[in-house]
């Protein structure tokens, strides 16, 4: 799958490497900015610190 994507990127090898790295960074940024905050509350490291109040 990743091989297929890499082969279909345009340009010479060095350009394709740069594009691939940029795509990876874009995905990581989206995960950290949007996906992780949304799913954080289900994580085993996220702990409730409050005393429940009415």
């Amino acid at each position: 799958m990743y091989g297929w994507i890499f082969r279909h990127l345009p340009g010479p090898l060095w350009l394709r490497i740069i594009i691939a790295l940029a795509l990876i960074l874009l995905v990581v940024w989206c995960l950290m900015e949007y996906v992780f905050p949304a799913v954080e509350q289900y994580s085993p490291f996220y702990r409730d610190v409050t005393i429940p109040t009415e």
Partner: protein
Amino acid sequence: MAAKQHTGTPPSSRSAGQWIIQILGELLITVGFILLLFVAWQLWWTNISANKAQDQAVDSLIQEFNAAAGGSGTQAAAGDSGDGASSVPSLKPGDWDPTDPATSAAPAYGETFGVVYIPRFGENYMRPTAEGTGTDVLDTLGLGHYEGTAMPGEVGNFALAGHRQTNGAVLDRVEELQEGDHIYVQTKDGYYTYTIYETKIVLPSEVDVIAPNPDDPTGEASQRLLTLTTCHPRYGDTERYIVHAKMENWQPLEAGAPAEIANSVAS
């Protein structure tokens, strides 16, 4: 996959089954990386971003307080090095009643209103306090004030919650606190000094710890208290770590910072 690239074999020479297995494998490896990334993000990155947000909140609060104190809380002169309490207090002891503090009504949800100093956690420990204990407040702004509990200096229980891990980990070192340690709260109404008289571990269901009078939940509030709550054990939340403190002193902003935190305030 090992035989993949040598001969430049066109991908179409593989069977559909091989393709499916390869894609499935790559997806599973990707999921593994994303999970690792998530753990790194939560245990490390959330602290960096929350600390940054909290530092900014503290800076703007202190500027606000200094302005409210008529500039008397600011660095008065350029040649103030070596003297942390460089501000020139415009009030002298005796000008106010340290047992009768000024107080304010609680602000709107999510609004920062105070700075908490805990010398036991180091001179640089300054954390903002915001109204509310929703995850949106606690995840970015540090200490959250339980809505409906007393405000700093009021008779009753000024109750705060904070993360022990992740998102700034404001109460990471809570177990180091001892009886007699001071917790300082600075608001636009002055500096409140609280002295810890009890630390304990309770079940989350023991809601009386943030009652107006935790020692006698059915009785009337009679003292000016502060309570910190955080999770326990570390990385767990089957219990809560509770710190109770009692107000010992109050002084207006114009009187300058209490000696123990003067360096923190000035920095």
